[in-house]
C-alpha cells in the first residue's frame, strides 16, 4: 500500500532521488544545533495560532461601545479592534488560549532566535561559505522585531497606544527625513489616519510573515546546500552525525511536540498581556511603567539612559533626543552584526572556507568582542526596567540611571579583557596538558624500548 502511494507520487513528481538524498542528509549531533529548530517550531505555532486569531480580529479604529460579557468594560467607548480582542479573550471558543499561546510563542521565538544567533556567532559558523545564511538570519531577526512590535500595537489597548506614541516619536527623531517619514507611515500626525491600523494589520498578518517565511525557506535551503557545520572531527572534509531518517526525524518530531507543549502550557496557565485590565486607548491616556515586550526592552533602556539633550542649530532641531537611544543604538548593534564577518576577515586575513566550528576559547578576540557587545546590550536592557526596581525594591531611580550610565560603558571593557584572558588561559592549560601527555608517551616508549 505504502509502496503504491510512493510509486504514484514518484511517477508524477519524480522526487525519489531528492527524497533519498534528503533522508540521508547528516545532521550534526550537538544540542546547540537544535536551538534554531526550536525557533522554527515557535514560528510554526505562531502562524497556526495567528491564522485562528485573524478570523476574529477587526482591524478598525472606528469608535464603538462595548456591551459584551466582561462587566468592568461595559458601556465604554473603544475601537472595533480593541473590542474584537476583548471578545477573542472572553467569548470566542479557545480564543484566550490561542491568543495567549500566540503571544508567548512570539516572546519565546525571539529568545530562541537570539540563542541560536549567539551559538552561530561564538562558534564562527557565520564564516565563508555560510555568510549569506547568516545575513538572512539577521534580516529575519530584524523583521521579527518589527513583526512583534506591530502585533503588540494593533490591539489598540492602553499599552499599544503608548508603544505607538513612542514609535512615532522615534520616527520623528530621524534627522532630515523623520517628519515626512512619520507622516507617510501614519498617514497624518499621531495617532494617524483611519487606514493606519489596516496598514499595520496587513503588515503583521501578510507582508512580514510572508517575508519571514520566504527568508526562512532560503535560510534552510542554504543550510542544507552548504551543509551544517561540524564541531568534530578536526578535519574540514569529514561529516559526522546522524542521518535524517531514522536518526534526526524522531528527534525533530519530539522537539516540535516539546516546543508546542511548552507554548500551549504557558498559554493556558500563565496570563500574558491581559488587555481587559489595560483598557482601551484614547490619545492622551497613559499608564505608569508601560513597557514593550522583552525583545524591545533594550530600546526602552536606550531611550531612558541617554541624557536629555537635542542637537540644535539656532531654532532648528537637527537631531531630537529619541534618535540616540531609539534609532542609533539598534542601528549600531545591527551594523556590528552585519559587518562582523567582513571585519574578522579583514583583521585576521582568514579568507578560507570553514566547515569545522571553533570553540569560543579558540578565538579569544572574537569571543571577547562578542561578550562585550552582549554585556553592553544586556545592561541597557536591564536599565529599561529601573522603574520596577524602584517600586518593588526601593532603589533610587535617579541613582540607578547614573550607575547604569557608567556601567554600560565600563562593564563591556572589563568583560572584553576578562573574557580574552579566560580564553587564553584555557588554551594555555590545554597546551600544557597535551605537552605533558606527549612527554609521558615518549617516556613510556623509552622505558619500553
Amino acid at each position, binding site marked *: 500500500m505504502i509502496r503504491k502511494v510512493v510509486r504514484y507520487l514518484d511517477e508524477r513528481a519524480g522526487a525519489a532521488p531528492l527524497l533519498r538524498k534528503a533522508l540521508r542528509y547528516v545532521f550534526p549531533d550537538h544540542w546547540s544545533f537544535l*536551538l534554531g529548530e526550536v525557533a522554527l517550531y515557535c514560528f510554526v505555532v505562531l502562524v497556526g495560532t495567528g491564522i485562528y486569531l485573524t478570523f476574529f480580529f477587526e482591524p478598525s479604529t472606528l469608535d464603538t461601545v462595548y456591551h459584551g460579557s466582561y462587566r468592568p468594560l461595559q458601556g465604554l467607548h473603544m475601537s472595533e479592534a480593541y473590542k474584537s480582542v476583548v471578545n477573542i479573550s472572553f467569548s470566542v471558543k479557545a480564543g484566550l488560549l490561542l491568543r495567549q499561546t500566540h503571544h508567548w510563542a512570539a516572546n519565546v521565538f525571539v529568545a530562541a532566535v537570539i540563542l541560536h544567533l549567539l551559538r552561530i556567532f561564538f562558534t564562527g559558523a557565520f564564516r565563508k561559505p555560510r555568510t549569506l545564511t547568516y545575513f538572512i538570519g539577521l534580516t529575519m531577526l530584524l523583521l521579527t522585531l518589527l513583526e512583534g512590535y506591530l502585533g503588540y500595537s494593533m490591539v489598540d489597548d492602553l499599552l499599544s497606544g503608548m508603544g505607538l506614541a513612542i514609535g512615532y516619536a522615534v520616527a520623528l527623531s530621524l534627522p532630515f527625513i523623520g517628519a515626512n517619514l512619520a507622516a507617510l507611515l501614519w498617514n497624518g500626525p499621531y495617532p494617524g489616519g483611519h487606514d493606519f491600523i489596516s496598514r499595520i494589520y496587513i503588515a503583521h498578518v501578510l507582508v512580514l510573515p510572508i517575508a519571514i517565511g520566504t527568508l526562512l525557506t532560503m535560510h534552510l535551503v542554504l543550510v542544507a546546500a552548504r551543509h551544517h557545520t561540524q564541531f568534530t572531527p578536526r578535519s574540514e572534509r569529514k561529516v559526522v552525525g546522524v542521518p535524517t531518517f531514522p536518526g534526526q526525524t524522531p528527534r525533530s518530531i519530539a522537539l516540535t511536540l516539546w516546543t508546542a507543549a511548552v*507554548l500551549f502550557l504557558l498559554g493556558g496557565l500563565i*496570563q500574558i498581556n491581559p488587555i481587559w485590565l489595560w483598557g482601551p486607548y484614547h490619545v492622551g491616556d497613559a499608564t505608569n511603567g508601560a*513597557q514593550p*515586550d522583552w525583545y524591545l526592552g533594550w530600546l526602552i533602556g536606550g531611550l531612558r539612559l541617554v541624557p536629555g539633550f537635542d542637537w540644535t542649530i539656532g531654532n532648528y532641531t537637527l537631531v531630537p533626543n529619541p534618535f540616540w537611544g531609539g534609532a542609533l543604538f539598534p542601528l549600531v548593534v545591527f551594523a556590528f552584526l552585519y559587518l562582523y564577518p567582513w571585519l574578522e576577515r579583514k583583521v585576521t586575513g582568514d579568507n578560507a572556507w570553514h566547515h569545522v566550528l571553533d570553540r569560543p576559547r579558540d578565538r579569544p578576540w572574537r569571543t571577547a568582542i562578542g561578550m562585550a557587545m552582549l554585556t553592553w546590550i544586556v545592561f541597557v536592557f536591564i536599565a529599561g526596567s529601573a522603574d520596577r526596581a524602584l517600586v518593588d525594591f526601593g532603589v533610587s531611580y535617579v541613582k540607578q540611571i547614573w550607575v547604569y550610565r557608567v556601567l554600560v560603558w565600563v562593564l563591556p571593557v572589563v568583560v572584553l579583557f576578562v573574557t580574552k584572558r579566560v580564553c587564553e588561559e584555557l588554551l594555555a592549560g590545554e597546551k600544557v596538558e597535551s605537552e605533558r601527555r606527549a612527554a609521558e608517551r615518549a617516556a613510556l616508549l623509552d622505558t619500553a624500548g
Partner: protein
Amino acid sequence: MRWLLVIAVALALPPAALADPPPSGIVHPSAPPGTPLVELGYQLYAGNCSSCHGSKGEGVPKLGAVEGAGDVPGAGPSLRSVGALSADFYLRTGYMPLDDPGHQPHRSRVLFSNHEIEAMVAYVASLGNGPPVPKPHPERGNVAEGLHLFTSHCAGCHQVVARGGYVTGGVAPPLSNSTAVQIAEAVRVGPYLMPTFSPHAISDRQLDSIIAYVAYAKHPDDRGGWSIGRLGPVPEGLVTWWIAIVALVASCLVLAGRLKS
C-alpha cells in the same frame, strides 16, 4: 520594638509631656477619662506635631528659620484650614508623623489608637474652616466609568491596575491597601507630588466610580491563568527566559544526549 519602649516611657511620664515634649518619639498623653476630644487632640498635637506645624497649627515656614516646639528643627505647612479631611488622611495612612520633613511620606504603621486619631482630627478641624472627612459611596459607583476616569486622571502615575510606579522626584504608591475614604481624601488633598483634584475636576459621583474601580483592581478578573503581578511585559519577559527557554534548552539537551547513548 523601639517605639513600644518610647510609648512605655511616655506613658510613665505624667502630663509633663505636654509642658516639655520630648524632641523625638511618639507621645501618648494620659488624659483622664472624660477629657474633651479636642483637648486630648491638642495634647497629642503638642507632643507629636507641633515641631513642624507650629504650636498652634500656624506652620513652620522654613527648616531652621523658627525653632519648632521642643526646639526641634522642623518645617511643615500650616494646618489652619486643612480640616478634618487632611488630618484623617495623613494620620490613618501613617504618612504622619514624618521622620524627615524632606522625605516623601509613605504608608507605614499607624502609631496612634483610633481614639487618639479622632482626637487629633477634631483638634485640627477646630483650627479653621476646613473640609470634613468625606463619606464616599463606592457602591453607587460604576467600575467601567471608574476605569475610564482612572485611566485619564490617575494611571499615568499609579499604573492602570493601581500597582504604582516611578514619577520624577518620587514614587506613586500602589493602591492595594488604600481604603475608600483614604482614596477620596487623597484625591482632594493631593499629598506630596500628587495634584489636588477639586470637585470641579472630579465630582463626588465620579470619585465613587474611581473608588469602585480601585477596589475592583485589587482582585480583578484573572482569566488566562497565573497573573504574574499584572504588570505586563517585565514579568512576562522573566517567564519567557526563566521558564520557557530553560525548559526548551533542557529538552534540546535531553534529545541530543539521548541520541548519543
